[in-house]
């Protein structure tokens, strides 16, 4: 175990009856990092968080906090406050009483309680609502109350379960920056569960991607985006083109992938797979290029036909199809696409540098 590890999951399994919600999970959370846990609905994100909070007991394995096993510690004896998806603010208490709640439960005296709550009310800019009822607050204000209520005990770690999912888009972005700033300033470890790729990638130092109770990949947003480790991750992120085929020695040295779209040269990082095995390579849609005539160096060129185009802000996504019917996407700035004929049915060539192709693990 590294010195800067705050939490470690060691072979943690969670079953509900015969259903396995989390399968043999091994990973570490570092002190002071912003970790996002991402994955599709029902993949076990909340379950993972609840086990860490002590609201769900692992069926197998050990969870350690600062090196000590905490499996048998009830949630009220752990300092692992959580911000709930529904926020779960106490409707019969006003804002100040909500924030003071955790201090009161710890037997801290009235004066001290008031003082510390005041600090967090101020920090979250909700002092002016201190005496209001929860029902009289807007969504964003409630969010701040929920954060203050959890942070008032100044924990080492804060757990957040899709806290922004109920907010509208503009407020979501505002709260993201509030959260990120808060995390940086306090140095508290944040574990943030979300569905949203943009939330995870814009806030987190590291991202965990889960699927059906299994961790598919852990890494920085850049690592995951550039080189998805598994086919699931690549599909989930939806920002890469995938090609599968049989591995064979290349004509001009190196290794090639024999795919329906033609022979593709492998390059770049990692260990090359053995001849005769099947492999899948991913290429980012921003690293896939288009031209009217085949490019001079004729490796990794695939003939394609335009099927559609979509504008998203400053960039456009061109949808294409190989003769075999495989979809290929290319994402570029408008000026890069300006010289290309992009009418539907137009024949073009898609190509990329071998170094931009990344092998994914075959699952």
């Amino acid at each position, binding site marked *: 175990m590294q010195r800067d590890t705050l939490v470690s999951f060691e072979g943690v399994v969670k079953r509900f009856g015969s259903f396995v919600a989390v399968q043999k999970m091994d990973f570490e959370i570092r002190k002071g990092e912003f970790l996002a846990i991402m994955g599709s609905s029902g993949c076990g994100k909340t379950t993972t968080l609840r086990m860490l909070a002590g609201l769900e007991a692992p069926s197998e394995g050990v969870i350690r906090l600062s090196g000590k096993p905490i499996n048998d510690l009830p949630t009220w004896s752990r300092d*692992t406050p959580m911000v709930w998806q529904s926020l779960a603010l106490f*409707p*019969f208490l006003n804002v100040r009483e909500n924030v003071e709640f*955790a201090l009161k*439960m710890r037997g801290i005296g009235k004066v001290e309680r008031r003082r510390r709550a005041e600090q967090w009310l101020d920090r979250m800019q909700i002092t002016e609502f201190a005496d209001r009822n929860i*029902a009289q607050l*807007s969504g964003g204000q409630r969010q701040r109350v929920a954060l203050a209520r959890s942070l008032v005990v100044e924990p080492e770690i804060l757990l957040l379960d899709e806290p922004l999912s109920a907010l509208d888009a503009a407020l979501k972005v505002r709260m993201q920056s509030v959260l990120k700033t808060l995390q940086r300033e306090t140095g508290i470890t944040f574990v943030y569960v979300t569905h949203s790729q943009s939330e995870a990638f814009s806030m987190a130092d590291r991202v965990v991607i889960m699927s059906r109770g299994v961790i598919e990949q852990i890494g920085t947003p850049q690592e995951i985006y550039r080189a998805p480790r598994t086919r699931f991750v690549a599909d989930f992120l939806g920002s890469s083109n995938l090609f599968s085929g049989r591995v064979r020695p290349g004509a001009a040295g190196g290794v090639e992938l024999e795919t329906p779209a033609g022979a593709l040269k492998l390059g770049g990082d990692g260990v090359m797979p053995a001849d005769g095995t099947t492999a899948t390579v991913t290429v980012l849609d921003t690293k896939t290029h288009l031209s009217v005539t085949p490019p001079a160096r004729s490796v990794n060129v695939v003939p394609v036909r335009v099927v559609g185009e979509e504008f998203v802000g400053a960039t456009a996504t061109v949808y294409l199809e190989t003769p075999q019917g495989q979809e290929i996407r290319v994402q570029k700035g408008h000026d890069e696409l300006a010289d290309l004929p992009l009418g539907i049915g137009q024949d073009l060539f898609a190509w990329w540098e071998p170094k931009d192709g990344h092998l994914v693990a075959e699952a």
Partner: protein
Amino acid sequence: MSGSGAESINRSRGVDWALKGYILLAYLFVFAPIAASFVFSFNSDRFPSIPLGSFSLEWYEAVAADPLVWQGLRNTLVVGVVVGVISTLLGFGAAYTDYRYKFAGKQVYLALALLPPTIPVIILGLAMLAYLSRINLSGNALSVIIAHVVVCAPFAMAIIRLRLSQMDPALEPAAWNLGASEWKTMRHVIVPFTKPAILGALFITMAVSFDEFAVAWFVSGLNETLPVKVLGFLQGQVSPRINAIGTFVFVLSMTLVILAQLLLSGKGANDRAPADDKE
């Protein structure tokens, strides 16, 4: 009653008036006997007849002068308060158990817990009498209390259960997560949240106990409650004193029921009202 919602629907005025009239008639039908009893309790004539005699409080005076009535009233009040408290405690426990735990046979548990009010009161009263006299408890106030708790606790449970079902399921674990043990959570979260329902249940069960006659008749022995006493009067002679007592009991019960209604609808709705202003 046409709410503001109904007005937006294009319904003919005639239908609207007819429906209002219908409701008026229904209320008239339900409350006419009580209203009559109320009117005759202030009437000087010995027998209820129209035209009315002069306004008079003589029947109230007669009732107030009767020590047996006072004894009945005291029994009723003591029994009602004790029954209200015990039923509400039991009802709360049963409702919380249902809210918190999943266990085999939960449906059966719920059905049994809610069963007593569906048993015909004559049968319940007889069974209570047989049972309580077997264990030497029949014929005193305690026996009425026991019998009434059996009848009232399911009402308390139903009311509190409804309130618990409106609670965000994350509220209780959120309190644990913030450092409150299970007992502290009960005291600082569950009870405050359900308080309107707890008070509502208290008033309703008291009212049910005040009014309950049949079971009390079987088991009360010499410690008659007021409704039992009224029947005693009736069997002796028809007297407007009954109207006076009836009016008094009605007003008392209605006060409790209205209090409960205010607590259950007003406060409960407040907690969940969404704020629609944006930040």
